[in-house]
């Protein structure tokens, strides 16, 4: 009788896992173009002028400069409207054309990560519907929200690897009368700002060397499908994402590090809406207080809807507990727009923010009192019916 070796016995009982030999996230392009050549989907190509940027594992990424389709963020447009307005304003100021579509839904991923009241096919169909809408206009998608960006990268990976999912989504898209489209690159607006940082700095009107900045990198930007995120050897030696920090450096501000940079903001998706005690505690104890103690920033910059919301709004009630809070929070788009001379209220819409940003404006050399008076003037015109809306012309672009 043959004896079973104990180790064999053990192995026969043990759950086996097939690990992918290369843990780096793949360069998806090959698979994408292969599916295109087999007629399974259309790839919307980067067109016209573009900048090639470095990513985490070295795969080059093309960032189209103009003719962009703005995939907006519900949290930005709804609650931090100076965020999206600043992105548009910078693009206009630099002379690049774009489309701000109505044929766009949210990615619905905030809800998905909060409540799971959706499924893989629905999430993929929502993504592809938006991509098809962009494709139909000929403009290339630019994603405003970090969560949309991260989620769409996940959806892309699932679609590329799961034929059943593709078939399921294809049936839905046929019902909608839309083609299956994926863009050649999924691009976040902060990547566009990074790619354009020299053009932005060339139009800069404020000197920022005395402005101390800490950056909160957004989890869904660089943790989900991490191989797609920008890493630059000249920014933290390529060991942290260069999104936001690269722009801050180029603008000449005083970029300061702190130890909990990898921590999330505490947003939590469902927590920010229905369990904010967690959000407030995390944002205060693990982010704002650590930044203050270690780096004493004048401003916290980040590049996602949820992070601006969680870090800004969470600073009010901790004051009642005597916590060391009180640093303004905004997107790097608003900060860059200010540096380029944008109006703090008409463009950056800082009155929608909670934490006191006025000392920062003063340090930047912006007369916020005069600016507020100008904004109130505009409001008077709107109130009196002289005009219905503030326009791009009113803000000089």
């Amino acid at each position, binding site marked *: 009788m043959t004896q079973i070796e104990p180790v064999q016995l053990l192995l026969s009982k043990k759950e086996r*896992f097939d690990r992918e030999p290369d843990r780096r996230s793949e360069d998806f392009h090959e698979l994408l173009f292969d599916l295109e050549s087999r007629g399974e989907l259309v790839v919307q190509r980067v067109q016209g002028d573009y900048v090639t940027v470095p990513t985490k594992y070295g795969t080059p990424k093309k960032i189209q400069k103009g003719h962009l389709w703005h995939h907006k963020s519900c949290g930005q*447009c709804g609650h931090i409207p100076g965020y999206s307005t600043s992105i548009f304003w910078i693009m206009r100021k630099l002379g690049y054309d774009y489309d701000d579509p109505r044929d766009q839904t949210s990615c619905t991923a905030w809800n998905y990560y909060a409540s799971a009241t959706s499924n893989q096919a629905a999430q993929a169909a929502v993504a592809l*519907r938006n991509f098809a809408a962009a494709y139909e206009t000929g403009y290339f998608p630019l994603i405003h929200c970090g969560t949309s960006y991260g989620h769409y990268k996940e959806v892309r990976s699932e679609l590329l690897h799961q034929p059943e999912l593709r078939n399921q989504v294809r049936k*839905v898209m046929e019902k909608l009368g839309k083609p299956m489209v994926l863009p050649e690159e999924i691009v976040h607006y902060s990547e566009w700002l990074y790619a354009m940082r020299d053009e932005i700095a060339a139009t800069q009107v404020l000197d920022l060397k005395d402005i101390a900045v800490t950056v909160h990198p957004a*989890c869904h930007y660089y943790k989900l499908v991490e191989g797609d995120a920008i890493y630059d050897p000249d920014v933290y030696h390529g060991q942290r994402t260069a999104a936001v920090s690269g722009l801050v450096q180029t603008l000449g501000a005083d970029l300061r590090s702190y130890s909990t940079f990898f*921590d999330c903001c505490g947003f939590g998706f469902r927590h920010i809406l229905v369990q904010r005690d967690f959000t407030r505690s995390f944002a205060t104890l693990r982010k704002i207080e650590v930044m203050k103690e270690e780096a004493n920033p004048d401003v916290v910059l980040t590049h996602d809807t949820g992070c601006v919301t969680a870090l800004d709004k969470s600073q009010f*009630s901790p004051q009642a507990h005597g916590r060391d809070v009180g640093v303004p929070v905004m997107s790097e788009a608003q900060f860059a727009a200010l540096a380029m001379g944008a109006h703090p209220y008409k463009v950056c819409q800082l009155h929608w923010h*909670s934490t006191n940003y006025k000392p920062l404006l003063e340090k930047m050399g912006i007369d916020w009192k005069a600016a507020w008076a100008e904004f109130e003037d505009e409001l008077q015109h709107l109130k009196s019916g002289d005009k219905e809306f503030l326009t791009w012309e009113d803000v000089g672009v």
Partner: protein
Amino acid sequence: MRTVTEDPYMKVDRVAGHENVERASKVALMEEVFADPRLPHYLYGCYECGICVAACPSARFYDFSPRRIAQAAARRDIDLMFQQMEEDIWECSQCFSCLRCPRGNNPGGIITVMREVAVKNGLHSAQEALHGYSRIIFKIMSTGTQVSPDMLQPDAFPDWGPEVKDVSENLDLWRRALPPETHHTTKTGWAVADKTIVELYLIWLETGALDMIKQVDEGIHMILEEVMEERLEDEGIEI
């Protein structure tokens, strides 16, 4: 009485709790979790190194651990996974910091799948976690944008400071003071085209996403179904 010696690697149900739930239904739920095509890419065993826990925001403030999630799933510990489904998964922040796992696991992703199964099967934890959240589900599914300017009400966000009141009092005017033409809305984040909404409704119906709501909030499901069917009917679309 059962003792731990029955299977020393699995949690005993009287310790895991939820003994009143039949084992067969727990097994069925976990089979649903493991049948998800994403699962094989989210789990490769576990070193028990705790790197995910160190990175996890929820582990700092709750009795919660992504390591436990990965461990239970790797062992297929049915009773423990059920306990986690009822008691743990809604604490997760879905930040995906745990993707730092040196083994290549995605505990946050396992949780996404477990949550989906919890919702689909109307588990108590899902109903409890989403209590008070229904209005958001209604907003996103019916309008295509998740949060809207008119949600900024001081009674909804009393902890966000007096600025929320300023916004809500001036909402109409301040929205008109936004240069982007799509931003003059108060009920949605931006102006979404009618045809876009119709397409979104078709997606919810065709993929079964709408059906999922029924298990967690029948009332909201009914309203959503009515809104969507009426709209699609107006467009002459048969469901």
